[in-house]
């Protein structure tokens, strides 16, 4: 069970009180100021030291300790205590100036009348010291109990900003404080939004927070001892008409939640997942949106005091993005046979919205081997594709050999036909009865036949050379590096790119205006 749930169910007001010895003093209200725990601890330490020195009647040292406490945390109560110490030590001038600083720090002290009289008295004593016949002043009455040092009450609430009041029980016989009013014998000594810091004299106090926003009223009583720093914190309980809604999403964190704010949303998000908060009871509708996911909406009803958890299952959108760059200029990028863009290094990657699933990717550039392969487009995510196109090998020799092969084939055919023609003539002559054994056409025909054979052989060899030239491919095939999928809103991951296809084991220098590297390819 979470802390929030416990707080809601029990409606407890959790109070943390730290007390330190104090000096007799009236309650003094302070302006809310940020209270640093470290500085507060430091101030508390000096205040304890001052309180101890004051009890030992080492007033000047005590004044110095309070001065250090004020330096650590500028609460007006420290100035008051310092001034009292100076007064006790007979340092009237310093006592007067410190009281005046106290008044500046606390313009409306609850004991302002007494303080004004005290200042006047000090001024009179100082005046008498400078006259020829000083008015005799009574020495400090050592029989009096030491004057009480002022204490501090730091009144905090969760959440802060709640309207707070501090009431002092001025009449020991007064009945218990009633939130409904009519509290005779109780005097409000400080009020304001929490955190509220008040300089107090020792005594019983009632601290209260009015009903504020969706929070219930809070009331409590605190006994403040002399020379103490009291830190009071209350966790405000929610009102009984609220319900607690917690929204989570399984697939993604940080999805924006809109409560009763249909698209186009007019307000800031109610929160981002996971998020829980009190909302008024009744029927509501939430919209949950995250990049790469279909918007999710759900209507629900929450009852008073109910804690409701909505676990939304966001569905990925049915498309993704391919972010394609390459190692050459003017790479034509086609997906499933349709050109989606031309990559230029200066223009940045080609970003194409593609339906999720496997798609045929083709990349081609002038003078480069085209790449054709399949890429997996993640649903609702982007994927970087780095196209590495290898140089297309030259085919000049192959074409030359092919042309010569064709020429020699043509010559062979021609000579062969000539040879056949001669043979046909000879056969005709033989049939006609006038073919001689030394007929000149025998050698002629043989030469043609042998030449034809030479032509066919040369053609065959050249065709082989041409075929080898066409088929031989000294450069590696073009390939793509496929990055890991990443969310739409994210930057591309800096993870390693997985190179494929892996067809052979070779080291191939990649030289282009963009890249210079050694490519290791392997097949097993």
């Amino acid at each position: 069970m979470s802390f929030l749930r416990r707080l809601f169910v029990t409606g407890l007001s959790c109070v943390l009180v730290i007390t330190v010895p104090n000096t007799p003093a009236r309650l003094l209200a302070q302006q809310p100021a940020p209270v640093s725990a470290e500085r507060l601890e430091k101030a508390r330490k000096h205040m304890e030291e001052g309180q101890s020195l004051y009890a030992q009647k080492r007033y000047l040292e005590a004044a110095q300790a309070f001065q250090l406490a004020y330096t650590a945390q500028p609460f007006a109560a420290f100035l008051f205590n310092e001034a009292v110490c100076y007064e006790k030590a007979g340092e009237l001038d310093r006592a007067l100036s410190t009281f005046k600083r106290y008044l500046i720090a606390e313009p409306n002290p609850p004991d302002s009348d007494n303080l004004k009289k005290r200042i006047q008295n000090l001024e009179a004593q100082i005046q008498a010291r400078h006259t020829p016949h000083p008015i005799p002043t009574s020495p400090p009455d050592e029989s009096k109990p030491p004057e009480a040092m002022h204490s501090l009450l730091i009144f905090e609430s969760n959440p802060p900003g709640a309207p707070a009041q501090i009431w002092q029980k001025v009449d020991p016989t007064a009945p218990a404080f009633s939130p409904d009013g009519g509290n005779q014998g109780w005097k409000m000594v400080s009020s304001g939004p929490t955190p509220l810091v008040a300089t107090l004299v020792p005594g019983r106090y009632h601290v209260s927070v009015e009903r504020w926003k969706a929070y219930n009223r809070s009331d409590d009583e605190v006994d403040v001892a002399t020379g103490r720093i009291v830190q009071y914190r209350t966790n405000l309980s929610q009102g009984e008409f609220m319900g607690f809604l917690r929204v989570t999403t399984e697939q993604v964190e940080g999805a924006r939640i809109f409560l009763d704010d249909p698209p186009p949303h007019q307000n800031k998000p109610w929160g981002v997942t996971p998020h829980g908060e009190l909302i008024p009871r009744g029927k509501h509708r939430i919209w949950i949106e995250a990049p790469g996911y279909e918007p999710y909406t759900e209507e629900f009803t929450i009852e008073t005091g109910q804690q409701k958890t909505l676990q939304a299952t966001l569905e990925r959108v049915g498309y993704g993005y391919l972010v394609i760059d390459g190692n050459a200029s003017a790479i034509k990028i086609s997906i499933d046979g349709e050109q989606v863009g031309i990559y230029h290094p200066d223009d940045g990657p080609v970003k194409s919205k593609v339906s999720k699933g496997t798609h045929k990717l083709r990349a081609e550039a002038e003078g480069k081997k085209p790449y054709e392969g399949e890429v997996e487009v993640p649903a609702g995510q982007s994927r970087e594709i780095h196209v590495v196109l290898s140089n297309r090998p030259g085919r000049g020799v192959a074409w030359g050999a092919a042309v010569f092969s064709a020429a020699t084939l043509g010559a062979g055919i021609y000579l062969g036909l000539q040879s056949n023609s001669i043979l046909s003539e000879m056969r005709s002559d033989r049939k006609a009865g006038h073919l001689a054994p030394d007929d000149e056409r025998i050698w002629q025909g043989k030469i043609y036949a042998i030449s034809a054979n030479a032509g066919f052989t040369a053609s065959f060899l050249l065709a082989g050379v041409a075929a080898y030239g066409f088929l031989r491919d000294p450069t590696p095939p073009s390939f793509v590096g496929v990055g890991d999928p990443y969310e739409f809103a994210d930057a591309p991951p800096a993870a390693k790119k997985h190179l494929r296809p892996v067809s052979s084991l070779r080291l191939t220098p990649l030289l282009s205006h963009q890249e210079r590297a050694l490519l290791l390819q392997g097949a097993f």
Partner: protein
Amino acid sequence: MRCHLALVVLTALPSCLWNRFDEEVVNAPIELLDRPAWILGGYSSVMAGDPERDALMVGGHPLLSSGVIFSFSKTPPTLHPACDNQARCRLLGGPVAAGDRAGGTGCFVYGVGAGPTGVGEEIGLLGGCATGELFKLPLPTKVRTLFVEKLFQPGAGAAIFPGLLSVASAGRLLAAGSPDLSLVMILDPSKDLPSEIPAPLEADGSFAQSIALTGGQDPVLAVGAPSQGRVYIFDARGPDYTPRACLRRPGAYGVVLHGFSDRGKPRLAISDASGIVDVVDPNKLPLAESCTEAPKEAIVDTLRCVEDDKVTGCDGGAFGYALASADLDDDGTPEVIVGAPGLNVRGVSNAGALAIFRLDPTTDQPRYLFLSSSSAEERVGSAVAAFRKDGRLVVASSALDKQKTAIFHCAGSSPSARCN
């Protein structure tokens, strides 16, 4: 287009087998006979064959070379020189087939003449057989005397080549003519001495440049005077050797004469310089009161050179430069073989050709066969002869450029491995 290309490739691919050409000429239809070393030049300029025997005689340049007689009764063929002393043997007339003589078979008779000096050289009619025998035919005393006188005529010098320029045979009959002596002598085995036939008074000096004897029951002797455009016809058996008929045609006529018989009927083939060969029946010629063109009824056939897509150059093709005859198709009627050494065949210049005709006056130029060469300047048809080889009638002709004799094995109709 792709199919066409594939077809072309498939068509061309068999050319890989270059030995196809060698296979093609194994047992080629033409067989070539190499020139013997003793024949100095012009081998196969003249030749004669015996259609009844396996014998062929081939000579070189007239008045420059001797000749060789082949016998094909054995394989390889045997060959014999036409003279004992080749240096003194300058073939001039003939040769002609002379049957079996002097104890030999497959004999030939040929005229020899004197060289520039005439000293120690033979003049007259010599004979040689395929079996190797050589013989000499007698010359009348008057002829011999005239030869000698002519040879040593003052001032004539080296320009004179007297001798028997033309020789003819028909069965046992032989005839030889000498334009130098303006006479023709005929050797009839039934008579003891050769008969002398003087040139008619109107004949010019070209008389006896060509002569022919026909076979048959009434053989005739034809003597050409080509410069005069005349052919004189005599009864070959005499006894009166006055012209029985006389044929004439403007221009050179009777340049080449060839006599043969068709089923016992005499036939004369007469070629002129314009490329026309007339085959006439001498028995249908009118009596020789005057010299006239052959009447239509006497013309058995007229053979002409015809150009087509393969044959060109009839004009100047020397159609009729050599004539022979044989029953190549074995139909009982001889075919006339006409040599045309100046023809261009399939674009080959002066390849020459043999055109073999069946004699059929009812149709126009029923050419039976056309034989040619694929080599330029071969001048096939400069000489032609028909003879038997391996029991088949074949035709031999010149292959001047190769200095060889070409035997056309497929001229006959008999089957042969050489004729597919």
